[in-house]
């Protein structure tokens, strides 16, 4: 069994990077506006289906990988402006219910348009097959995914720490009113922030479609691990989301290897242990109810 260990660990890392990137998107939206975006998985699924349709119509995978997430971002920003923004002033569970309702509708819509069962969406020939890494061989597409996710995370980190807009965004998370007082257009800030979260979901959605399959509920399957990732990493910490995601990915792939029956429950056990030791998650901040 140990000869499976290395690829399985690598698998866990790729899976964990997915969770991490979805969790970062959720976190961005949650931190700025207090919205738990239950439709996050739907945006992923939508990106996957759009990419699938583009490839079906003869477009290249590479174009689809870029264009599909961008279309989803437009949809996301429209949803934010039209349906979610009016709820920011209310208690946060209203926006949760709103996005929950949207995800139910989206799921049914996917079923109507693309059929109730999954559709095959395979990576392009250039990324098919396996690459020998010396001590093990591993599917090329997964190596590619790992590369894209790393680039996306680094790009995001640079955006948030090196650009004016990114710095304002981070400041706004601390104190929305102060940013408004400084004259930053908070409306634009909200839209860009939401769009950014959705962009990450869109990219992850296309890649996940190729790796984990594509069906009306496939995006939602990543939602719960992403929630657990946010909890383990600590709310408000993007770095925490990455660490949390990788930990969960490893936990899941290792339990799949050794105790398959416990694979789904593994991350919850991990979550419980982390919370017992650190009630605010690994990188969470102190609050008044500590």
């Amino acid at each position, binding site marked *: 069994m140990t000869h499976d260990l290395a690829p399985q660990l690598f698998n866990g890392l790729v899976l964990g990077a997915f969770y991490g990137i979805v969790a970062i998107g959720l976190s961005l939206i*949650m931190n700025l506006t*207090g*919205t*738990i975006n*239950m439709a996050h998985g739907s945006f992923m699924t939508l990106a996957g289906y759009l990419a699938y349709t583009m490839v079906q119509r003869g477009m290249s995978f590479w174009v689809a990988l870029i264009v599909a997430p961008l279309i989803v971002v437009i949809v996301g920003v429209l949803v934010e402006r039209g*349906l979610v923004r*009016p*709820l920011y002033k*209310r*208690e*946060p*569970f*209203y926006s*949760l*219910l*709103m996005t*929950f*309702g*949207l*995800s*139910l*509708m*989206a*799921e*049914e*819509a996917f079923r*109507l348009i693309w059929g109730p069962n999954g559709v095959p969406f395979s990576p392009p020939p250039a990324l098919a097959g396996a690459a020998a890494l010396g001590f093990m061989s591993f599917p090329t597409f997964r190596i590619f995914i790992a590369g894209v996710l790393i680039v996306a995370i680094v790009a995001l980190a640079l955006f948030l720490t090196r650009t004016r807009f990114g710095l304002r965004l981070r400041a706004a998370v601390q104190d929305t009113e102060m940013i408004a007082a400084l004259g930053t257009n908070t409306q634009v800030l909200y839209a860009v922030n939401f769009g950014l979260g959705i962009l990450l979901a869109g990219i992850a959605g296309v890649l996940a479609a190729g790796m984990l399959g594509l069906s009306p509920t496939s995006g939602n399957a990543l939602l*719960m691990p992403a*929630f*657990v990732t*946010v*909890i383990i990493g600590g*709310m408000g910490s993007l770095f925490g989301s990455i660490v949390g995601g990788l930990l969960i990915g490893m936990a899941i792939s290792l339990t799949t290897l050794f105790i398959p*029956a*416990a694979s*789904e*429950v593994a991350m*919850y056990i991990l*979550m*419980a242990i982390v*919370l017992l030791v650190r*009630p605010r998650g690994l990188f969470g901040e102190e609050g*008044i*109810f500590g």
Partner: protein
Amino acid sequence: MKARAELIAGIVVVAILAAGPYLSPLIHVDLSIVSEVLVTALAVMSVNLLLGYTGLPAFGNAAYFGLGAYGAALSAKYLHVDFIGAVIIGTASALLGGLILAPFLLRRRGIYFGLLSIAFGQVFYFVAYRFTDVTGGEDGMNFPRPLVLGHYAINETTFFYVALAAFVGCLIAFRTVVRSPFGRTLVAIRQNEARVRYLGLNTDRFIFVALLISATLAGLGGALFGLLINFAYPLELDWHQSGFFVLMMILGGAGTVWGSLVGSFIYVIGKDIISTQTSYWQLYLGGLFVACVLAFPRGILGTLLARLNARPAAADSEPHG
């Protein structure tokens, strides 16, 4: 005055419900659907206590509901307990679940509480889903409805009256709780928890008890639901189901005593009617969420009562509704 009006309205509602077995054929609704309304209302009440009164986004109460259903199902099937035993074991399972989760949930507030509720609730879903040998896994588990004291069978009409009695009993208990000093303090926690702590009260203790009451109520609802349909299935435990309970609570009116029944009634009957007409029930349901949040954030009863009093019911010193 208000108390009397509520008493009269309450008696009228219960009287109409009690005539259910005679009325339901007239409106072409199966009596078991009305029973479902009543037991579902208990789960909605459990959400109402946490979210409507205490302000905690209880998005994991399906876990307790499902624990109630599975507790009843497993004890009836494997332990061969009678009807009453199944109800008690189901409810107790949910209370136990609440005791296990409460220490985790207690630590956080606001959306983080919601996030933790969703995540921890999901554990039970996967347990039910995975232990196929015992629970039937994804397909769920059938079990015969046990007899009372091993002797008396319970038909649909009798069951309806059992459900009605449970509902009325819980409603009175719920009303007592939310109007008590304890309940008033929960409402104060919703409005300004820091202030309550600076009155020298350990709010964690209040929230702990509220969580346990909530889990017990949801568990009783779940146990009766399981015994109603003689079936337990993992989706009862799923976070979607938790979201439906929250929707029903908002539909009826957050922070109102009778809102749970109104919300449960609209949802259960609406689902029964619409899902026989179309196979796109979920599309309508999603639309209902969106419409409710945008147009009816205070729910039907909440809006009505606000019109009558120009004061929010849950904030009132002498709550009504």
